[in-house]
């Protein structure tokens, strides 16, 4: 139960909010460079699972491992805080509502954490910000404030902010759900580029086409359990479970 070989390991994850059991014994492993999509109806526990990986929502049972280190270690409070802050530096997260820091410019959004946590000098951090923002096509807006950007631009900056910490793993929680349809593609393009660079990613999404095109594996979750998982061509074309079929059918109808 101690040594882990897989890059990301979720073992018997269990999470309750009071009486409500949101995650029921979920296990999942992701290899280095793999891209996993999590799909499922709203309220099925997708966000909770993602947020458990970096301990934003602490599990009530089970283990999370990243690259041989247990994320949700049993430690006294103070030591745990130090440990989890170090782990979180290695796990990038992108939120549905971007959560950019509105009081900071695009540049400062990206440079803050590397300067504060990795001791980068201002020049080093600026060079890093320019590199990361160039990567997501946002270099021209480096001195803008978030309030001056479109949703798609905000999300690309949020991705650059996460990447600037050089994470081993990226988590995306419905990164495009809050965007106007015409802005979805620019964010998807950035995620595709990351995929080509073999970034390990776990992506919660409602976009089946994107999941099919980019992901190595798809998990279908419902009511706190993984109902079915497999390569996208199996999950989307010939799922074995009735619940998966029903979800996909409804989803396709909903999209029309």
């Amino acid at each position: 139960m101690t040594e882990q070989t897989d890059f990301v390991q979720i073992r018997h994850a269990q999470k309750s909010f009071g009486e409500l059991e949101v995650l029921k014994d979920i296990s999942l492993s992701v290899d280095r460079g793999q891209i996993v999509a999590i799909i499922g109806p709203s309220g099925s526990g997708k966000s909770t699972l993602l947020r458990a990986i970096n301990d934003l929502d602490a599990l009530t049972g089970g283990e999370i491992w990243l690259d041989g280190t247990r994320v949700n270690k049993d430690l006294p409070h103070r030591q745990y805080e130090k440990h989890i802050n170090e782990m979180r530096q290695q796990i990038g997260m992108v939120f549905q509502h971007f959560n950019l820091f509105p009081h900071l410019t695009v540049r400062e959004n990206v440079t803050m954490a590397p300067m504060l946590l990795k001791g980068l000098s201002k020049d080093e951090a600026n060079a890093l910000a320019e590199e990361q923002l160039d990567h997501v096509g946002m270099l021209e807006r480096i001195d803008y404030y978030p309030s001056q950007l479109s949703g798609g631009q905000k999300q690309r900056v949020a991705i650059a902010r996460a990447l600037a910490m050089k994470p081993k793993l990226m988590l995306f929680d419905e990164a495009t759900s809050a965007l106007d349809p015409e802005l979805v593609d620019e964010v998807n393009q950035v995620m595709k580029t990351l995929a080509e660079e073999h970034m390990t990613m776990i992506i919660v999404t409602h976009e089946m086409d994107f999941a099919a095109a980019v992901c190595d594996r798809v998990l279908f979750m419902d009511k706190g359990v993984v109902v079915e998982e497999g390569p996208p061509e199996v999950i989307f074309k010939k799922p074995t479970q009735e619940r998966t079929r029903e979800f996909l059918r409804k989803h396709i109808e909903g999209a029309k």
Partner: protein
Amino acid sequence: MGLDFSIIPKYMDVILLGCAWTIGITVAAALLSFVGGIIFAVIALYAPWIVRQPFRLIEWLFMGTPLLLQLFLIYFGLVQIGIDLPAFVAGIIGLGLHFAVYNSELIQTAILAVDKGQMEAARTLGLSRAQALRKVVIPQAVRAVIPPIGNNMIALLKDSALVSVIGVSELTLSAQRVIGKTYRPFEFYMLAAACYYVINLCMEWVQRKIERRISISR
């Protein structure tokens, strides 16, 4: 005797010196109330119980009693325990802490109103809670309360007249002294009122400038 404003220029230097003291005390107390307000807010929200309790006593003292009494206590009372402050320092501390408590209430509410996602995004990057508060949450909370804090600072300017009772020659006391010599209360109280009005306008102008500057970063 009728009104005679021609007497004013002769005593203008005294009145202007009074203005200078009023402005100095107001600015110093405003800064203290701002920094103190942030510190008080953080203590009230996040300090352990053992720190919070004595602090609540201070809060009650500054909110629940007259400012005048607080000034007396700081200027005359503290001498007894060996703290002998110059009157203007006692005035700045009294006004500053009094308004710090009011600012703290505003800032606390604003801190709690900052979107939860902000703290989460900061923690996700690896910041500690204290770092996230300092770099992300508090700066946003402070921006949100600049307008009401500005109103508190106008109130502070007006209440700065109270430090005249501990003998600081600010604007109101300067006017009184001139009136003592000239027996021209209407002229000089009106002049003092005009001075307060002008200072007030300047403060509003500064406030608007600050608000405009930060509007883009909210």
